[in-house]
Protein backbone atom coordinates (compact mmCIF):
# COMPACT_ATOMS: atom_id res chain seq x y z
CA UNK A 1 0.00 0.00 0.00
CA UNK A 2 1.31 3.43 -0.86
CA UNK A 3 0.42 6.72 0.68
CA UNK A 4 -1.25 9.46 -1.29
CA UNK A 5 0.11 12.97 -1.71
CA UNK A 6 -1.95 15.89 -0.49
CA UNK A 7 -4.10 16.85 -3.42
CA UNK A 8 -6.21 19.61 -2.00
CA UNK A 9 -5.11 22.54 0.12
CA UNK A 10 -7.56 25.08 1.39
CA UNK A 11 -6.10 28.41 2.41
CA UNK A 12 -7.95 30.17 5.15
CA UNK A 13 -7.57 33.73 3.97
CA UNK A 14 -8.21 35.59 7.25
CA UNK A 15 -5.14 33.91 8.74
CA UNK A 16 -2.85 34.89 5.92
CA UNK A 17 -0.49 37.71 6.79
CA UNK A 18 -1.72 41.09 5.62
CA UNK A 19 -0.02 41.88 2.34
CA UNK A 20 0.85 45.47 1.72
CA UNK A 21 -1.17 46.59 4.68
CA UNK A 22 -1.95 50.25 4.45
CA UNK A 23 -1.69 52.28 7.56
CA UNK A 24 -4.89 52.60 9.44
CA UNK A 25 -5.93 55.43 11.66
CA UNK A 26 -3.45 56.38 14.34
CA UNK A 27 -4.08 55.02 17.77
CA UNK A 28 -5.18 58.09 19.65
CA UNK A 29 -5.04 56.56 23.04
CA UNK A 30 -8.41 57.85 24.14
CA UNK A 31 -10.89 56.02 21.98
CA UNK A 32 -14.62 56.20 22.37
CA UNK A 33 -15.36 52.53 22.39
CA UNK A 34 -18.96 52.81 21.35
CA UNK A 35 -18.27 54.72 18.17
CA UNK A 36 -15.08 53.16 16.85
CA UNK A 37 -15.80 49.50 16.97
CA UNK A 38 -14.75 47.88 13.74
CA UNK A 39 -15.81 44.56 12.39
CA UNK A 40 -14.45 41.47 14.04
CA UNK A 41 -13.30 40.20 10.68
CA UNK A 42 -11.09 43.18 10.10
CA UNK A 43 -9.48 42.67 13.45
CA UNK A 44 -8.52 39.06 12.92
CA UNK A 45 -5.70 40.43 10.81
CA UNK A 46 -4.08 42.62 13.37
CA UNK A 47 -1.67 41.32 15.92
CA UNK A 48 -4.10 41.19 18.76
CA UNK A 49 -6.83 38.62 19.04
CA UNK A 50 -10.28 40.00 19.60
CA UNK A 51 -12.32 36.85 19.79
CA UNK A 52 -14.78 38.39 17.39
CA UNK A 53 -15.00 41.64 19.32
CA UNK A 54 -13.14 44.78 18.50
CA UNK A 55 -14.07 47.47 20.94
CA UNK A 56 -11.01 49.58 20.21
CA UNK A 57 -9.38 51.47 17.42
CA UNK A 58 -7.08 49.66 15.03
CA UNK A 59 -3.44 50.24 15.81
CA UNK A 60 -1.06 52.64 14.17
CA UNK A 61 1.53 50.21 12.95
CA UNK A 62 5.23 50.76 13.34
CA UNK A 63 8.15 48.58 12.38
CA UNK A 64 9.03 45.47 14.33
CA UNK A 65 11.41 46.23 17.18
CA UNK A 66 14.02 44.02 15.50
CA UNK A 67 13.89 46.30 12.45
CA UNK A 68 14.19 49.32 14.70
CA UNK A 69 17.26 47.73 16.30
CA UNK A 70 18.86 47.13 12.91
CA UNK A 71 18.29 50.70 11.85
CA UNK A 72 19.54 52.12 15.14
CA UNK A 73 22.66 49.94 15.10
CA UNK A 74 23.54 51.01 11.55
CA UNK A 75 23.11 54.66 12.56
CA UNK A 76 25.34 54.17 15.61
CA UNK A 77 27.95 52.51 13.43
CA UNK A 78 28.19 55.62 11.27
CA UNK A 79 29.05 57.89 14.13
CA UNK A 80 31.20 55.67 16.34
CA UNK A 81 33.85 53.26 15.08
CA UNK A 82 33.91 51.50 18.45
CA UNK A 83 30.55 49.95 17.58
CA UNK A 84 30.99 46.41 16.26
CA UNK A 85 28.46 43.69 15.54
CA UNK A 86 28.54 39.92 15.93
CA UNK A 87 25.81 37.53 14.89
CA UNK A 88 25.29 33.79 14.70
CA UNK A 89 24.01 33.23 11.17
CA UNK A 90 20.74 35.04 11.86
CA UNK A 91 21.68 38.55 10.82
CA UNK A 92 18.92 38.66 8.21
CA UNK A 93 16.44 37.93 10.98
CA UNK A 94 17.91 39.87 13.88
CA UNK A 95 18.49 42.74 11.41
CA UNK A 96 22.13 43.26 12.27
CA UNK A 97 22.62 42.75 8.52
CA UNK A 98 21.91 46.45 8.04
CA UNK A 99 25.12 47.18 9.96
CA UNK A 100 26.98 44.37 8.20
CA UNK A 101 26.25 45.87 4.79
CA UNK A 102 27.57 49.29 5.76
CA UNK A 103 30.52 48.17 7.88
CA UNK A 104 31.62 44.70 6.78
CA UNK A 105 35.01 45.11 8.47
CA UNK A 106 33.30 45.65 11.82
CA UNK A 107 30.84 42.78 11.47
CA UNK A 108 31.79 39.24 12.43
CA UNK A 109 29.45 36.42 11.58
CA UNK A 110 30.26 33.64 14.04
CA UNK A 111 28.22 30.98 12.30
CA UNK A 112 25.76 28.92 14.29
CA UNK A 113 27.77 29.04 17.50
CA UNK A 114 26.20 31.30 20.08
CA UNK A 115 28.47 30.40 23.00
CA UNK A 116 31.56 31.31 20.99
CA UNK A 117 29.89 34.51 19.81
CA UNK A 118 29.24 35.75 23.33
CA UNK A 119 32.85 35.19 24.40
CA UNK A 120 34.12 36.82 21.17
CA UNK A 121 32.04 39.86 22.09
CA UNK A 122 33.61 39.81 25.56
CA UNK A 123 37.09 39.85 24.06
CA UNK A 124 36.17 42.75 21.78
CA UNK A 125 34.68 44.68 24.70
CA UNK A 126 37.72 44.12 26.89
CA UNK A 127 39.77 45.92 24.21
CA UNK A 128 37.53 48.98 24.06
CA UNK A 129 34.97 48.01 21.43
CA UNK A 130 31.22 48.29 21.96
CA UNK A 131 29.99 44.96 20.59
CA UNK A 132 26.34 44.21 19.85
CA UNK A 133 25.85 40.44 19.91
CA UNK A 134 22.58 39.41 18.30
CA UNK A 135 20.72 36.17 17.79
CA UNK A 136 17.30 34.78 18.61
CA UNK A 137 16.63 35.40 22.31
CA UNK A 138 16.14 31.70 23.00
CA UNK A 139 19.48 30.62 21.51
CA UNK A 140 21.46 33.57 22.76
CA UNK A 141 20.34 33.39 26.38
CA UNK A 142 20.07 29.62 26.66
CA UNK A 143 23.09 28.47 24.64
CA UNK A 144 25.17 31.48 25.57
CA UNK A 145 24.22 31.70 29.21
CA UNK A 146 27.43 30.45 30.81
CA UNK A 147 29.40 32.72 28.49
CA UNK A 148 27.16 35.64 29.44
CA UNK A 149 27.81 34.70 33.05
CA UNK A 150 31.58 34.22 33.08
CA UNK A 151 32.92 35.99 29.97
CA UNK A 152 30.65 39.03 30.24
CA UNK A 153 28.79 39.52 33.54
CA UNK A 154 31.52 38.45 35.95
CA UNK A 155 34.01 41.07 34.73
CA UNK A 156 31.13 43.47 33.92
CA UNK A 157 32.18 43.95 30.31
CA UNK A 158 30.55 46.46 28.01
CA UNK A 159 28.71 43.94 25.80
CA UNK A 160 25.26 44.64 24.36
CA UNK A 161 23.24 41.46 23.95
CA UNK A 162 20.28 41.62 21.59
CA UNK A 163 17.73 38.80 21.67
CA UNK A 164 15.32 38.97 18.76
CA UNK A 165 12.19 36.91 18.12
CA UNK A 166 11.55 37.06 21.86
CA UNK A 167 8.37 35.90 23.48
CA UNK A 168 5.83 33.81 21.57
CA UNK A 169 4.77 36.47 19.06
CA UNK A 170 7.10 35.01 16.42
CA UNK A 171 4.33 32.45 16.12
CA UNK A 172 4.54 29.66 13.60
CA UNK A 173 8.12 28.55 14.18
CA UNK A 174 7.04 27.04 17.47
CA UNK A 175 8.40 26.47 20.94
CA UNK A 176 12.07 25.84 20.09
CA UNK A 177 12.37 29.32 18.57
CA UNK A 178 10.09 31.09 21.04
CA UNK A 179 11.62 32.58 24.13
CA UNK A 180 9.57 32.51 27.29
CA UNK A 181 12.47 32.66 29.77
CA UNK A 182 15.02 35.14 28.38
CA UNK A 183 14.12 37.99 30.74
CA UNK A 184 14.39 35.78 33.81
CA UNK A 185 17.79 34.58 32.64
CA UNK A 186 19.02 38.06 31.75
CA UNK A 187 17.87 39.42 35.11
CA UNK A 188 19.81 36.61 36.81
CA UNK A 189 23.08 38.03 35.46
CA UNK A 190 24.50 40.38 38.12
CA UNK A 191 25.18 43.86 36.76
CA UNK A 192 23.15 43.43 33.58
CA UNK A 193 20.70 46.11 32.53
CA UNK A 194 17.62 44.53 30.95
CA UNK A 195 15.54 46.39 28.36
CA UNK A 196 12.33 45.37 26.56
CA UNK A 197 11.18 48.11 24.21
CA UNK A 198 7.51 48.36 23.24
CA UNK A 199 7.69 49.84 19.77
CA UNK A 200 9.90 51.17 17.03
CA UNK A 201 10.33 54.59 18.59
CA UNK A 202 11.27 53.37 22.04
CA UNK A 203 13.50 50.63 20.61
CA UNK A 204 15.60 53.06 18.59
CA UNK A 205 15.97 55.32 21.59
CA UNK A 206 16.84 52.49 23.97
CA UNK A 207 19.38 50.90 21.61
CA UNK A 208 21.17 54.23 21.46
CA UNK A 209 21.03 54.62 25.24
CA UNK A 210 22.30 51.05 25.65
CA UNK A 211 25.30 51.73 23.41
CA UNK A 212 26.51 54.46 25.70
CA UNK A 213 25.44 52.87 28.95
CA UNK A 214 28.62 51.60 30.59
CA UNK A 215 28.25 47.91 31.32
CA UNK A 216 26.44 44.85 29.98
CA UNK A 217 22.92 45.31 28.59
CA UNK A 218 20.31 42.88 27.32
CA UNK A 219 17.83 44.22 24.76
CA UNK A 220 14.76 42.18 23.87
CA UNK A 221 13.30 42.62 20.41
CA UNK A 222 10.36 41.03 18.64
CA UNK A 223 9.57 39.59 15.25
CA UNK A 224 6.15 41.03 14.33
CA UNK A 225 5.34 44.60 13.48
CA UNK A 226 4.64 46.46 16.67
CA UNK A 227 1.82 48.97 17.11
CA UNK A 228 3.19 52.38 17.96
CA UNK A 229 2.56 53.51 21.49
CA UNK A 230 4.82 56.57 21.35
CA UNK A 231 5.28 59.61 19.20
CA UNK A 232 8.70 60.74 18.05
CA UNK A 233 8.86 63.41 20.75
CA UNK A 234 8.87 60.92 23.62
CA UNK A 235 12.00 60.81 25.77
CA UNK A 236 13.52 57.78 27.42
CA UNK A 237 15.95 57.07 30.18
CA UNK A 238 17.38 53.71 31.18
CA UNK A 239 15.87 52.69 34.48
CA UNK A 240 12.99 55.18 34.34
CA UNK A 241 9.56 53.84 33.41
CA UNK A 242 7.34 55.84 31.06
CA UNK A 243 3.84 56.51 32.32
CA UNK A 244 1.69 56.59 29.19
CA UNK A 245 -1.73 56.87 30.84
CA UNK A 246 -2.32 58.20 34.33
CA UNK A 247 -5.03 56.33 36.18
CA UNK A 248 -6.69 56.54 39.56
CA UNK A 249 -8.34 53.13 40.08
CA UNK A 250 -5.71 50.66 38.92
CA UNK A 251 -2.32 50.55 37.21
CA UNK A 252 -1.41 48.28 34.32
CA UNK A 253 2.37 47.74 34.11
CA UNK A 254 3.56 46.20 30.86
CA UNK A 255 6.57 45.89 28.59
CA UNK A 256 7.27 45.03 24.98
CA UNK A 257 4.29 44.29 22.76
CA UNK A 258 2.11 44.05 25.84
CA UNK A 259 2.20 47.81 26.35
CA UNK A 260 -0.16 48.29 23.43
CA UNK A 261 -2.49 45.59 24.71
CA UNK A 262 -2.49 47.28 28.10
CA UNK A 263 -3.46 50.56 26.43
CA UNK A 264 -6.34 48.82 24.71
CA UNK A 265 -7.36 47.25 28.00
CA UNK A 266 -7.20 50.65 29.63
CA UNK A 267 -9.66 51.96 27.02
CA UNK A 268 -12.02 49.07 27.55
CA UNK A 269 -11.93 49.68 31.29
CA UNK A 270 -12.48 53.39 30.75
CA UNK A 271 -15.73 52.61 28.95
CA UNK A 272 -16.78 50.80 32.10
CA UNK A 273 -15.94 53.83 34.20
CA UNK A 274 -12.65 52.47 35.51
CA UNK A 275 -9.57 54.68 35.35
CA UNK A 276 -6.63 52.40 34.54
CA UNK A 277 -3.15 53.87 34.28
CA UNK A 278 -0.58 52.32 31.93
CA UNK A 279 3.13 52.21 32.66
CA UNK A 280 5.73 51.01 30.15
CA UNK A 281 8.39 49.37 32.28
CA UNK A 282 10.88 49.15 29.42
CA UNK A 283 13.76 48.70 31.86
CA UNK A 284 13.18 45.53 33.83
CA UNK A 285 16.54 45.86 35.59
CA UNK A 286 17.36 48.11 37.34
CA UNK A 287 13.66 48.34 38.08
CA UNK A 288 12.03 51.75 38.58
CA UNK A 289 10.90 51.22 42.16
CA UNK A 290 9.73 54.81 42.57
CA UNK A 291 7.34 54.60 39.62
CA UNK A 292 5.91 51.31 40.85
CA UNK A 293 5.48 52.48 44.45
CA UNK A 294 3.92 55.79 43.39
CA UNK A 295 1.46 54.04 41.08
CA UNK A 296 0.59 51.50 43.76
CA UNK A 297 -0.07 54.23 46.32
CA UNK A 298 -2.14 56.27 43.86
CA UNK A 299 -4.28 53.43 42.54
CA UNK A 300 -4.14 50.61 45.11
CA UNK A 301 -4.35 47.82 42.55
CA UNK A 302 -1.88 46.51 39.99
CA UNK A 303 -1.85 44.31 36.93
CA UNK A 304 1.42 43.26 35.28
CA UNK A 305 1.48 42.10 31.66
CA UNK A 306 4.34 40.27 29.98
CA UNK A 307 5.00 38.05 26.98
CA UNK A 308 7.14 35.79 29.15
CA UNK A 309 6.78 33.14 31.83
CA UNK A 310 5.10 34.44 34.95
CA UNK A 311 8.13 33.27 36.93
CA UNK A 312 11.15 35.50 36.98
CA UNK A 313 9.96 38.27 34.70
CA UNK A 314 8.00 41.49 35.09
CA UNK A 315 5.27 40.15 37.39
CA UNK A 316 7.74 38.55 39.78
CA UNK A 317 9.91 41.63 39.92
CA UNK A 318 7.06 44.08 40.42
CA UNK A 319 5.68 41.83 43.17
CA UNK A 320 9.09 41.87 44.80
CA UNK A 321 9.08 45.67 44.89
CA UNK A 322 5.51 45.89 46.15
CA UNK A 323 5.92 43.26 48.85
CA UNK A 324 8.87 45.11 50.30
CA UNK A 325 7.69 48.69 50.06
CA UNK A 326 3.98 48.87 49.50
CA UNK A 327 1.97 45.62 49.64
CA UNK A 328 -0.77 46.02 47.02
CA UNK A 329 -3.19 43.62 45.33
CA UNK A 330 -1.53 42.46 42.09
CA UNK A 331 -2.68 40.14 39.34
CA UNK A 332 -0.10 39.00 36.80
CA UNK A 333 -0.84 38.36 33.16
CA UNK A 334 1.74 36.23 31.37
CA UNK A 335 2.54 32.73 30.26
CA UNK A 336 1.89 30.01 32.79
CA UNK A 337 4.46 27.30 33.51
CA UNK A 338 4.55 25.97 29.95
CA UNK A 339 6.09 26.29 26.49
CA UNK A 340 3.83 27.54 23.74
CA UNK A 341 3.41 26.08 20.23
CA UNK A 342 3.07 26.89 16.55
CA UNK A 343 0.27 29.19 15.52
CA UNK A 344 -0.42 32.77 14.55
CA UNK A 345 0.37 35.41 17.12
CA UNK A 346 -3.35 36.09 17.39
CA UNK A 347 -4.10 32.47 18.17
CA UNK A 348 -1.24 32.13 20.63
CA UNK A 349 -2.10 35.33 22.47
CA UNK A 350 -5.61 34.05 22.90
CA UNK A 351 -4.61 30.57 24.06
CA UNK A 352 -1.81 31.70 26.37
CA UNK A 353 -3.73 34.59 27.89
CA UNK A 354 -2.12 37.75 26.56
CA UNK A 355 -5.01 39.63 24.92
CA UNK A 356 -6.50 42.92 26.09
CA UNK A 357 -9.50 40.91 27.29
CA UNK A 358 -7.24 38.88 29.55
CA UNK A 359 -5.82 42.09 30.94
CA UNK A 360 -9.29 43.51 31.54
CA UNK A 361 -10.28 40.35 33.32
CA UNK A 362 -7.16 40.49 35.48
CA UNK A 363 -7.91 44.11 36.29
CA UNK A 364 -11.38 43.22 37.48
CA UNK A 365 -9.91 40.58 39.77
CA UNK A 366 -7.36 43.02 41.15
CA UNK A 367 -10.06 45.65 41.73
CA UNK A 368 -12.13 43.07 43.59
CA UNK A 369 -9.13 42.24 45.79
CA UNK A 370 -8.61 45.94 46.40
CA UNK A 371 -12.16 46.29 47.77
CA UNK A 372 -11.79 43.28 50.05
Amino acid sequence: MTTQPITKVVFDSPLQPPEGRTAVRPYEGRVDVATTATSGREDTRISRPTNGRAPFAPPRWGAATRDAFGEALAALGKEDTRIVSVDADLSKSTKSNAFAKLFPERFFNCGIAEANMVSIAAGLASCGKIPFAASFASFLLCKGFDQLRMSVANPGLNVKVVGSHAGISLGEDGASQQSVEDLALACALPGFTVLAPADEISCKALVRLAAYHEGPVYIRTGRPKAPLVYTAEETFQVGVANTIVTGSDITLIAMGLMVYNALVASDILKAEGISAGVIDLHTLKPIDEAAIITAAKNTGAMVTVEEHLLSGGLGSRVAHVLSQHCPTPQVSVGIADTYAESGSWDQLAMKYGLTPQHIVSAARTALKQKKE
Partner: protein
Amino acid sequence: MDTKATLQAQSDLLRRDILTMIAKAASGHPGGSLSAIDMITALYFKVLRHRPSEPEWPDRDRFILSKGHAAPALYAALAHTGYFPVEDLMTLRQFESPLQGHPEKGKLPGVEASTGSLGQGISIGAGMALAARLDQKNYHVYVLVGDGEVNEGQVWEAALFAAHYKIDSLTVLLDCNRQQLDGWTNDILNTDPLASKWRAFGWHVIEIDGHDFDAILSALDEVKTVTGKPTLILAHTVKGKGVSFMENNIEFHGMAPNPEQLQKALLEIAA
Protein backbone atom coordinates in the same frame (compact mmCIF):
# COMPACT_ATOMS: atom_id res chain seq x y z
CA MET B 1 73.54 32.08 33.44
CA ASP B 2 71.99 31.41 30.02
CA THR B 3 68.34 32.04 29.27
CA LYS B 4 67.32 28.45 29.71
CA ALA B 5 68.96 28.16 33.13
CA THR B 6 67.52 31.49 34.22
CA LEU B 7 64.02 30.46 33.24
CA GLN B 8 64.46 27.08 34.91
CA ALA B 9 65.52 28.75 38.15
CA GLN B 10 62.60 31.13 37.85
CA SER B 11 60.07 28.37 37.25
CA ASP B 12 61.46 26.40 40.20
CA LEU B 13 60.89 29.45 42.35
CA LEU B 14 57.33 29.75 41.04
CA ARG B 15 56.75 26.04 41.62
CA ARG B 16 57.67 26.49 45.26
CA ASP B 17 55.31 29.43 45.61
CA ILE B 18 52.51 27.58 43.85
CA LEU B 19 52.73 24.67 46.26
CA THR B 20 53.18 26.88 49.30
CA MET B 21 50.13 29.01 48.52
CA ILE B 22 47.98 25.98 47.78
CA ALA B 23 49.13 24.31 51.00
CA LYS B 24 48.39 27.51 52.94
CA ALA B 25 44.93 27.71 51.37
CA ALA B 26 44.51 23.97 52.02
CA SER B 27 42.77 23.66 48.66
CA GLY B 28 43.56 24.21 45.01
CA HIS B 29 44.93 22.44 41.95
CA PRO B 30 48.65 21.66 42.11
CA GLY B 31 48.84 19.10 39.27
CA GLY B 32 47.71 21.31 36.40
CA SER B 33 49.53 24.34 37.80
CA LEU B 34 52.84 22.47 37.72
CA SER B 35 52.29 21.13 34.21
CA ALA B 36 51.66 24.66 32.89
CA ILE B 37 54.18 26.69 34.86
CA ASP B 38 57.16 26.31 32.51
CA MET B 39 55.18 27.75 29.58
CA ILE B 40 53.77 30.51 31.80
CA THR B 41 57.27 31.32 33.04
CA ALA B 42 58.62 31.57 29.49
CA LEU B 43 55.76 33.85 28.52
CA TYR B 44 55.85 36.22 31.49
CA PHE B 45 59.62 36.43 31.94
CA LYS B 46 60.74 36.32 28.33
CA VAL B 47 58.09 36.67 25.65
CA LEU B 48 55.19 38.91 26.65
CA ARG B 49 55.41 42.63 25.95
CA HIS B 50 53.74 43.88 29.11
CA ARG B 51 54.07 46.55 31.75
CA PRO B 52 53.30 45.19 35.21
CA SER B 53 53.19 48.74 36.56
CA GLU B 54 50.65 49.66 33.87
CA PRO B 55 48.41 46.58 33.61
CA GLU B 56 45.94 48.29 31.28
CA TRP B 57 48.59 49.43 28.77
CA PRO B 58 46.56 49.20 25.53
CA ASP B 59 49.41 47.76 23.43
CA ARG B 60 50.27 44.92 25.80
CA ASP B 61 50.26 41.31 24.70
CA ARG B 62 47.38 39.44 26.30
CA PHE B 63 47.61 36.14 28.15
CA ILE B 64 44.46 34.26 29.09
CA LEU B 65 44.59 31.29 31.41
CA SER B 66 41.59 29.45 30.02
CA LYS B 67 42.15 26.50 32.35
CA GLY B 68 41.38 28.73 35.30
CA HIS B 69 42.00 26.07 37.92
CA ALA B 70 45.74 26.59 37.32
CA ALA B 71 45.27 30.05 38.86
CA PRO B 72 48.18 29.63 41.31
CA ALA B 73 50.57 29.38 38.35
CA LEU B 74 49.23 32.61 36.86
CA TYR B 75 49.23 34.38 40.22
CA ALA B 76 52.83 33.37 40.91
CA ALA B 77 53.94 34.73 37.53
CA LEU B 78 52.00 37.97 38.01
CA ALA B 79 53.40 38.53 41.49
CA HIS B 80 57.00 37.81 40.52
CA THR B 81 56.83 40.10 37.50
CA GLY B 82 55.55 42.90 39.71
CA TYR B 83 51.78 43.14 39.26
CA PHE B 84 51.27 42.92 43.02
CA PRO B 85 53.34 42.09 46.11
CA VAL B 86 54.63 38.54 46.31
CA GLU B 87 53.40 38.30 49.93
CA ASP B 88 49.83 38.55 48.62
CA LEU B 89 50.21 35.07 47.14
CA MET B 90 49.64 33.69 50.63
CA THR B 91 46.09 35.09 50.61
CA LEU B 92 45.07 32.67 47.84
CA ARG B 93 41.42 31.61 48.21
CA GLN B 94 40.98 33.56 51.42
CA PHE B 95 37.89 35.63 52.13
CA GLU B 96 38.01 38.99 50.34
CA SER B 97 41.39 38.28 48.74
CA PRO B 98 41.74 39.36 45.08
CA LEU B 99 43.37 35.98 44.53
CA GLN B 100 40.13 34.13 43.91
CA GLY B 101 40.01 30.35 43.62
CA HIS B 102 39.80 30.86 39.86
CA PRO B 103 40.97 34.06 38.11
CA GLU B 104 38.55 36.97 37.89
CA LYS B 105 39.13 39.94 35.64
CA GLY B 106 38.74 43.16 37.55
CA LYS B 107 39.72 41.73 40.92
CA LEU B 108 43.44 41.29 40.35
CA PRO B 109 45.74 43.37 38.10
CA GLY B 110 46.97 41.41 35.11
CA VAL B 111 44.06 38.98 34.91
CA GLU B 112 42.65 39.37 31.40
CA ALA B 113 39.52 37.19 31.63
CA SER B 114 37.33 35.48 34.19
CA THR B 115 37.91 31.79 33.72
CA GLY B 116 37.22 28.57 35.56
CA SER B 117 34.17 27.58 33.59
CA LEU B 118 36.19 25.75 30.94
CA GLY B 119 36.18 26.39 27.23
CA GLN B 120 35.80 30.16 26.96
CA GLY B 121 39.38 31.45 26.75
CA ILE B 122 40.11 30.90 23.06
CA SER B 123 36.91 32.71 22.08
CA ILE B 124 37.74 35.66 24.31
CA GLY B 125 41.28 35.72 22.94
CA ALA B 126 39.96 35.67 19.36
CA GLY B 127 37.76 38.68 20.19
CA MET B 128 40.78 40.52 21.59
CA ALA B 129 42.79 39.72 18.46
CA LEU B 130 39.99 41.02 16.23
CA ALA B 131 39.99 44.25 18.23
CA ALA B 132 43.73 44.55 17.59
CA ARG B 133 43.10 44.08 13.88
CA LEU B 134 40.46 46.82 13.86
CA ASP B 135 42.72 49.17 15.80
CA GLN B 136 45.79 48.25 13.73
CA LYS B 137 47.69 47.28 16.83
CA ASN B 138 50.22 44.49 16.75
CA TYR B 139 49.83 42.89 20.16
CA HIS B 140 49.69 39.10 20.33
CA VAL B 141 47.14 37.06 22.26
CA TYR B 142 48.17 33.86 24.03
CA VAL B 143 45.65 31.45 25.51
CA LEU B 144 46.57 28.45 27.62
CA VAL B 145 44.08 25.59 27.62
CA GLY B 146 44.08 22.14 29.16
CA ASP B 147 43.73 18.89 27.27
CA GLY B 148 40.72 17.97 29.38
CA GLU B 149 39.31 21.36 28.53
CA VAL B 150 39.18 20.51 24.84
CA ASN B 151 36.25 18.24 25.69
CA GLU B 152 34.24 21.48 25.65
CA GLY B 153 32.39 22.18 22.41
CA GLN B 154 33.12 25.89 22.57
CA VAL B 155 36.84 25.17 22.09
CA TRP B 156 36.06 23.78 18.64
CA GLU B 157 33.66 26.59 17.82
CA ALA B 158 36.50 28.97 18.59
CA ALA B 159 38.97 26.85 16.59
CA LEU B 160 36.74 27.13 13.51
CA PHE B 161 36.22 30.84 14.07
CA ALA B 162 39.89 31.77 14.49
CA ALA B 163 40.88 29.83 11.39
CA HIS B 164 38.03 31.29 9.35
CA TYR B 165 39.07 34.82 10.25
CA LYS B 166 42.76 33.98 9.74
CA ILE B 167 43.66 35.29 13.18
CA ASP B 168 47.43 34.89 13.12
CA SER B 169 47.92 37.04 16.21
CA LEU B 170 46.35 34.28 18.31
CA THR B 171 48.38 31.45 19.80
CA VAL B 172 46.89 28.67 21.88
CA LEU B 173 49.14 26.66 24.16
CA LEU B 174 47.59 23.27 24.83
CA ASP B 175 48.88 21.89 28.12
CA CYS B 176 48.64 18.22 27.28
CA ASN B 177 49.24 16.52 30.62
CA ARG B 178 46.95 13.61 29.67
CA GLN B 179 44.92 13.74 32.83
CA GLN B 180 41.67 15.36 33.89
CA LEU B 181 39.76 15.25 37.16
CA ASP B 182 38.26 11.81 36.74
CA GLY B 183 41.34 10.13 35.28
CA TRP B 184 43.35 9.73 32.08
CA THR B 185 41.96 11.87 29.27
CA ASN B 186 41.93 8.93 26.89
CA ASP B 187 39.77 6.97 29.31
CA ILE B 188 37.35 9.82 30.04
CA LEU B 189 36.90 11.16 26.52
CA ASN B 190 39.50 10.35 23.93
CA THR B 191 40.43 13.48 21.98
CA ASP B 192 43.38 12.00 20.09
CA PRO B 193 44.87 12.67 17.65
CA LEU B 194 45.03 16.30 18.74
CA ALA B 195 47.68 17.58 16.32
CA SER B 196 45.90 16.37 13.21
CA LYS B 197 42.54 17.57 14.54
CA TRP B 198 43.84 21.11 14.96
CA ARG B 199 45.57 20.98 11.58
CA ALA B 200 42.31 19.84 10.03
CA PHE B 201 40.63 22.84 11.66
CA GLY B 202 43.07 25.10 9.80
CA TRP B 203 45.64 25.82 12.49
CA HIS B 204 49.40 25.85 12.31
CA VAL B 205 50.49 23.22 14.83
CA ILE B 206 53.82 23.03 16.66
CA GLU B 207 54.39 20.01 18.88
CA ILE B 208 56.85 20.39 21.74
CA ASP B 209 57.94 19.15 25.14
CA GLY B 210 56.18 21.68 27.37
CA HIS B 211 58.94 21.52 29.98
CA ASP B 212 61.84 22.19 27.62
CA PHE B 213 62.55 25.92 27.62
CA ASP B 214 64.49 25.79 24.36
CA ALA B 215 61.51 24.15 22.68
CA ILE B 216 59.02 26.53 24.32
CA LEU B 217 60.97 29.64 23.28
CA SER B 218 61.60 28.30 19.80
CA ALA B 219 57.86 27.62 19.34
CA LEU B 220 56.95 31.05 20.66
CA ASP B 221 59.39 32.56 18.16
CA GLU B 222 57.93 30.52 15.35
CA VAL B 223 54.35 31.70 15.98
CA LYS B 224 55.43 35.23 15.07
CA THR B 225 56.39 34.07 11.60
CA VAL B 226 53.07 32.35 10.86
CA THR B 227 50.68 34.33 8.70
CA GLY B 228 47.07 33.75 7.75
CA LYS B 229 46.29 31.20 10.42
CA PRO B 230 46.31 30.85 14.19
CA THR B 231 48.87 28.63 15.88
CA LEU B 232 48.41 25.79 18.33
CA ILE B 233 51.38 24.76 20.43
CA LEU B 234 50.68 21.20 21.44
CA ALA B 235 52.79 20.94 24.56
CA HIS B 236 53.35 17.50 26.02
CA THR B 237 53.60 17.95 29.76
CA VAL B 238 53.53 15.99 32.98
CA LYS B 239 50.84 16.67 35.53
CA GLY B 240 52.50 17.57 38.83
CA LYS B 241 55.85 18.10 37.05
CA GLY B 242 58.80 18.62 39.39
CA VAL B 243 57.51 16.76 42.42
CA SER B 244 58.04 13.00 42.27
CA PHE B 245 54.96 11.99 44.23
CA MET B 246 52.71 14.39 42.33
CA GLU B 247 53.84 13.52 38.81
CA ASN B 248 51.09 11.71 36.93
CA ASN B 249 49.26 11.30 40.24
CA ILE B 250 45.63 12.20 39.61
CA GLU B 251 45.08 12.63 43.36
CA PHE B 252 46.89 15.93 43.08
CA HIS B 253 44.61 17.29 40.36
CA GLY B 254 42.58 19.12 42.97
CA MET B 255 44.12 18.28 46.34
CA ALA B 256 46.44 20.49 48.36
CA PRO B 257 49.62 18.99 49.81
CA ASN B 258 49.58 18.66 53.60
CA PRO B 259 52.43 20.35 55.52
CA GLU B 260 54.65 17.25 55.38
CA GLN B 261 54.07 16.77 51.68
CA LEU B 262 54.80 20.43 51.11
CA GLN B 263 58.15 20.20 52.89
CA LYS B 264 59.08 17.13 50.91
CA ALA B 265 58.06 18.81 47.64
CA LEU B 266 59.98 22.02 48.40
CA LEU B 267 63.13 20.01 49.11
CA GLU B 268 62.77 18.15 45.82
CA ILE B 269 62.35 21.33 43.82
CA ALA B 270 65.28 23.02 45.56
CA ALA B 271 67.55 20.09 44.85
